[in-house]
């Protein structure tokens, strides 16, 4: 029995070694084909199992992202990855765990835009972006506005005109209360177009889609992933996407900008990796590099394409910049909405 298990462990180690070698080879090839400035000895070699702490329960978007990433990251770094679900407190439980951890790269967190809006509102004074290192951006996930197939609206322009015609009596259903990521996206459009919409808050994206299909709200907001199959089934119609360029999966839907609404396109949902304050920049770069390399694996690519997200290659320097920009933008919007006193 005992020897059996040892044998299995040996076998697993061997397998891991094999995977590691394959991973290293592919990483090296990528590096050679890429900038060439990062040498192979810069690979991330954690000394033990790596914990990824999440602010959500298992099964959600963040959870699926982390577990899929972990699958291709594990062979690359030669260590196992433990996904720790720490929901609660609007991210506070997770952030407390990450902040208290040693800055050795063995405890990391996954964040979304909610972390930044949270630190400006409910968690203001409890956590701040300066408590953490922002290591790598992995996914960009623009938000889009959509209606049911039989709706009279066809574009953002139609939506704006309808709102102007009947004094803002257009219901837009989206995720989270006033001040949430998607709600801020809507307010930014309001400011650009000079109209008002009526925000109806939901607690899950499937609920938003159900409400749009059932005619209980006029317009829905969501990221592409959960809505994609409804577009493919021809039951939803896109009005516009808040992004730099059109979505590759729905090339017919115009961006807000194309329709003449100049809304800041850095307002996108993100999934990134962060860690406790005080991690050496070199270590952060290694981690970012390993994550971005793991994202090239077939399994991850298959998932990311079906989830409708865009890959990002922002390392610690770019991501920290991006976080600052996003936080500033969020603060402006929250102040304008009267949710935060400056």
């Amino acid at each position, binding site marked *: 029995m005992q020897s059996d298990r040892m044998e299995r462990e040996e076998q697993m180690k061997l397998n891991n070694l094999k995977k590691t070698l394959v991973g290293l080879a592919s990483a090296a090839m990528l590096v050679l084909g890429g900038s060439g400035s990062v040498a192979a000895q810069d690979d991330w070699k954690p000394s033990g199992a790596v914990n990824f702490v999440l602010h959500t329960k298992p099964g959600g978007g963040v959870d699926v992202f982390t577990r899929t990433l972990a699958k291709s990251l594990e062979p690359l770094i030669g260590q196992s990855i433990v996904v720790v679900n720490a929901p609660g407190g609007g991210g506070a439980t997770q952030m407390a765990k990450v902040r208290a951890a040693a800055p050795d790269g063995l405890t990391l967190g996954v964040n979304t835009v909610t972390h930044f809006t949270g630190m400006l509102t409910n968690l203001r004074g409890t956590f701040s972006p300066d408590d953490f290192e922002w290591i790598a951006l992995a996914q960009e996930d623009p938000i889009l506005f959509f209606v049911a197939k039989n709706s009279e609206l066809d574009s953002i322009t139609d939506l704006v005109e309808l709102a102007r015609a009947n004094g803002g009596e257009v219901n837009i259903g989206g995720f989270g*209360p006033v001040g949430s990521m998607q709600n801020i996206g809507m307010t930014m459009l309001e400011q650009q177009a000079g109209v008002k919409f*009526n925000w109806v808050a939901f*607690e899950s994206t499937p609920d938003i889609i159900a409400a749009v299909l059932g005619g209980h709200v006029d317009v829905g907001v969501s990221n592409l992933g959960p809505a994609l*199959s*409804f577009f493919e089934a021809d039951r939803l119609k896109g009005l516009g996407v808040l992004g730099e360029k059109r979505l590759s999966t729905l090339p017919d839907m115009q961006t807000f900008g194309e329709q003449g609404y100049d809304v800041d396109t850095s307002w996108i949902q993100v999934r990134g990796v962060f860690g406790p304050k005080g991690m050496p920049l070199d270590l952060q770069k290694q981690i970012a590099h390993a994550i971005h390399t793991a994202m090239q694996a077939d399994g991850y690519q298959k*998932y990311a394409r*079906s989830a409708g997200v865009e890959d990002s290659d922002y390392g610690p320097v770019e991501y920290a910049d991006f976080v600052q920009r996003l936080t500033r933008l969020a603060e402006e919007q929250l102040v304008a909405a009267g949710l935060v006193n400056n």
Partner: protein
Amino acid sequence: MFENLAIGFAAFGDPMVWVALVFGAFAGYLIGAIPGLGPSLGVALLIPFTYGMDPVVSIVGLVALYAAAEYGGAITAVLINSPGTAAAVATAWDGYPLTQQGRAGEALSVSIISSGIGIFVSTALLILTAVPLSEFALRFGPGEYFALALVGLSLVAGLSDGSPLKGAVSMGIGLSLATIGLDAQTGVPRFTGGNPEFFEGLPLVPVLLGLYALSEVLFMIEDGPTEKKKSTPVAGIIALPVKTLLGLKTVILRSSVLGYVIGIIPGAGASIASFVSYAFSRRLSKTPERFGKGSLEGVASSEAANNSAVAGALAPLLALGIPGSPTTAVMIGALMVQGIQPGPLLFTRSPEIPYTVFASLWVGVPIMVLIGLAGARIWARVANIPRAAIAAIVAGICFVGAYSSETTMFPVHVMVACGLMGYVLRKLQFPLAPIILAMVLGEMMETNFRRALISAKGDWAIFYTSPLTMLLFTVAVLAFVLPGLAALRARKARAREV
């Protein structure tokens, strides 16, 4: 359809599918029996293991686990008055009194057989009606959800025995507790004392453990080591005469249909299904006075309903990609990991998935029932453990269960606070059931009430212009008024006799 069902059953030619089914059913049975771990956590725990598996094998394992875990909650509800999930609360109302009367084996056997029949019947309904009924469920807007929650509250308003005033107070406590946390519409923290741990509201499982189980422990300590009734050893396979079972057939069938229909409505789920069908069974029973004191009908209606709600919750998931319950929401993640996007095209693109789910629910029923019946023989002996030891074990389960629900100390503190509250309330003879029900329904009521008014720009007409809403309101009013009238009639009848 029969062709596709054949594909579904053909999946069982693969021995791995059988392994997944048996493993899922067994794991679910155990996970459900541990308070603090429920079906959604169980499914989530299993997801990482499904990575390397074939999609069909993994979905069979997950569905088996879901169904069995929804049953497993009944075990602790019956034996130690600790419903592991809100859906098993109504099972405890009659299951635990049965255990105290030495009839744990009977209660457990009825619960597993009702669960099995519930799944069998609701799966048949699922195959026939998943698509049309899920489309119909889309008509439920905020107004309808509010009315539905009101139906739930009013049906159960009459459930608590004793003073209606005390029942109302309990319901008020539950509704107040449901307001704790970040306000879903505006994001403003309410009654959190600035502590982020309260942002997401009071976690339900620790509240359940505290109110029911820990308070029971306190009562056990108070009563001391008095002699208690020995559990009758389980004789035969099903521990009760077939005649008894036949007598329950109407209750089980009605509760199965009711559970399925309520389960389809996204957000309603197994707990509302079991509460509502329990209330219906009591109203329609020939012996309503035995409900709450150890009625097999009560156990059967709650368990048939909460398990048929499993098939109900799967309907909108498979037909539209909209999860009908927290557990099916987790399953979306599991399917996505496999590269399958649940949505309106699932039936056309990957028919093997829904039809394998249908087949596995049916094939899984006998396996689940066998595990359950075998388990009932063993569990029934648990009821014979001396009171002091039981008290210690239950207290341990409370702490471990609360901790494991979030792996932090916060739910443990909530559990202890609710345990003390539960003890005091029971001493003062306030019923506990309305608290739990109001907590479950309170959030649904408030969110949808405000969502309705916001989307109607403050126009109250949204509550009386939809025929569906009006229908639900009528049911709610009748449910509230009829028992009152019946009580009045009974009093008059008594007065005449005297």
